[in-house]
């Protein structure tokens, strides 16, 4: 059956970048005055052209999109014809509301995938409407692209779309992360985890015969990770376990029948939850009562951050108190295969340096199975 793609371009995404604004949320006028130029149209065109030239015939897909610069123009420029305009923005200068309205139409049309071109803000707008009901794939064109829905380049987007159509990819978790721009312009760095969307990911393959591999779903891998953590908890009965944020850890906690906060930090002792959605202060209070602590983390977003994106509650002070050796990093193999490094940005140079000295972390990728992954702490 021909797949239905919802396609939306955020025409103003990425305009803040060159003029140093870290985004265009609510400051578009300023960006334009500073000389910002649109870039997302070009990025969208690049991805579409490559998709058509390298991978596809023009009739492979049915496209649902928005009038004008929000998708129609781009699709027509590359010669696609199976297009259905499902939404027209009221004004020429589009806003987040237009992206959201378009997504509502995509839901009505029951699209299989939403392909968008924009940045973290656009991803967040889409996620607010579609939640985890429809998988999202982002062509990177924004200033901030921390979210897990982005492919690493326009060219990678084209390839992923192709692989998705041919059923070579599976659906997995993709975190929606965004810098709070208002706080940022006031000098505060607050990158938040807004939710867990569905993205398209490379499946994990397991060798089942001499030359036969079977793909394993993300959930099956996460079940193995849950088994692993269960063993850890049973082995270390005198430890307090802090469960970090994100989809992988949430899955693990739920498998262990623990009530967990998807986007927050929870504490577990003796197989019971002793603290939910904790902030830094509350975790520090707990650490006074429990001297032995293990912290479970999982990479968040497209770039492999385990600290510094989406979990600022875990302050440098806290991490030092817990100790680097008490951090357990869990990840599905696909997630670490899509990023060459684990990244750490604690905001504390000395602590970052301690991670840098370690050079690598052992990451749990299956039941009693781990592998070495390099840590990167600066220059990213």
């Amino acid at each position, binding site marked *: 059956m021909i797949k239905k793609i919802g396609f939306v371009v955020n025409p103003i995404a990425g305009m803040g970048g060159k003029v140093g604004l870290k985004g265009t949320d609510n400051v578009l006028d300023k960006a334009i005055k500073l000389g910002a130029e649109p870039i997302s149209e070009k990025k969208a065109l690049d991805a579409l052209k490559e998709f058509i030239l390298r991978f596809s015939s023009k009739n492979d897909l049915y496209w649902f999109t928005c009038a004008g610069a929000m998708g129609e123009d781009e699709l027509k420029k590359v010669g696609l014809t199976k297009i259905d305009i499902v939404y027209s923005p009221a004004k020429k200068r589009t806003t987040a509301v237009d992206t959201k309205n378009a997504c509502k139409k995509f839901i009505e049309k029951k699209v299989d995938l939403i392909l968008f071109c924009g940045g973290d803000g656009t991803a967040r707008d889409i996620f607010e409407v579609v939640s985890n009901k429809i998988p999202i794939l982002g062509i990177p064109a924004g200033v901030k692209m921390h979210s897990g829905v982005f492919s690493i380049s326009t060219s990678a987007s084209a390839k992923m779309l192709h692989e998705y159509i041919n059923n070579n990819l599976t659906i997995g978790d993709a975190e929606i992360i965004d810098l709070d721009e208002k706080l940022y312009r006031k000098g505060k760095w607050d990158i938040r985890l807004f939710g867990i969307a569905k993205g398209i990911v490379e499946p994990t*393959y397991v*060798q*089942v*015969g*001499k*030359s*036969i*591999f079977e*793909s394993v779903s993300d959930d099956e891998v996460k079940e193995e990770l849950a088994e692993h953590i269960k063993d850890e908890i049973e082995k270390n009965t005198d430890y307090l376990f802090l469960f970090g944020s994100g989809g992988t850890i949430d899955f693990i906690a739920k498998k262990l029948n623990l009530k967990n906060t998807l986007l927050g930090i929870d504490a577990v002792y003796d197989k019971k939850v002793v603290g939910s959605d904790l902030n830094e202060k509350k975790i520090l209070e707990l650490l006074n009562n429990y001297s032995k602590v293990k912290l479970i983390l999982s990479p968040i977003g497209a770039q492999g951050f385990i600290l510094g994106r989406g979990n600022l509650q875990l302050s440098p002070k806290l991490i030092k108190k817990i100790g680097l050796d008490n951090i357990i990093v869990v990840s599905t193999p696909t997630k670490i295969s899509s990023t060459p490094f684990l990244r750490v940005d604690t905001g504390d140079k000395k602590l970052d340096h301690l991670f840098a000295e370690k*050079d*690598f972390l*052992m990451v749990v990728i*299956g039941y*009693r*199975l*781990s*592998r*070495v992954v390099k840590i990167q702490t600066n220059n990213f």
Partner: protein
Amino acid sequence: MGGQILMKRNATTFLKNEYEELVNKNLDWKLRILESGSTPHSVVDGKKVIMFCSNNYLNLSNHPKLIQSAVDAAKKYGAGSGSVRAIAGTMKLHMDVEKKLAKFKRTEAALIYQTGFAANAGLIPQLVGKGDIIISDELNHGSIIDGVRLTKADRAVYKHRNVSELEKVLNEADKKYRRILIITDGVFSMDGDIAPMGKIVKLANEYGAMTYVDDAHGEGVIGPEGRGIGAHFGIEGKIDVEMGTFSKAYGVVGGLIAGSQDLINFAYNKSRTWLLSGSHPPAVAGAQLAAIDVLETEPQHVKNLWENTKYFKKELKSMGFDTGESETPITPVIVGESNKAKELSNRLFEEGVFALPIVFPMVAKDKARIRTMMNAGLTKEDLNYTLEKFEKLGKNLEII
């Protein structure tokens, strides 16, 4: 009058269903039937082909001495051995093979398993258990992976042939575990590259780790006289477990391990696969004995294998083919997308050259390939014929 018995479940419908699912996904094995012996020119599915996918590297499976020795042993000792090794199935012939093998491998002792898989699946779970760790190359062969799965030990993988990553894992494991076992393929069967065994053994010694190498594709192929990976690196007797097989270059069947007498005593008392399966028939043992003898006395087979390999690789490269990182008679011809590799393999078969495609996910998506396995019995004419076909089809399919 019997009442109708309500069936709780259908016990066997899954057999058909799961098989059909495999067929639908095109994942079932379509068996090719050999209508000749496994010879450099074989008859496969009724077609005469030049064989490029057998593991019979030295063409010993057709060597008169092996055949004669198998016949003699069968005539003298019968068709079967009558028992498992541990009870009444150890014949003097089996002991002779082990003794000869140890001498050939320059180790204290050796042990024959029923198959290579039986060696891995039987021995690995005995070497480590709870509180131990197995450190494994990410591209290790399936039978190692299964052996590893049977243990309660933790597992860590390091990047393919990456010694510095291995050291990082060792450093981490050192603090936490009782025993550490490093396992790697000797020759990797997809790319034909060789594990850096010298460096691995050195590191293992520093950390008090055991080393275990699955040298299935190296036995009879690499090292002086084809004595395997220990000999290749000049570290005979220093690898804790040198595991290999009689089914590839040796031309027979059976798994083997070579190492210290302590290892062998431990292995045959503890490996469940060894203890619970019948021993090799006399004909098999007889052929194994002759295979080692031929390796010791007829150096031309290994020499021919390497001469053929070097010529074939050189010519492929000069035509513009990418042959990867291979250092052995396994030469991948990398063509790119999966479909292209399948197409090339089919067309080669039509032209009388039998070589299998290896595609994703066994290798990376854009590294699909034809895997060629050299044979010492192929002549220059055979190689030139094959090369000509590769060149013609490579151009047709726009690979070169």
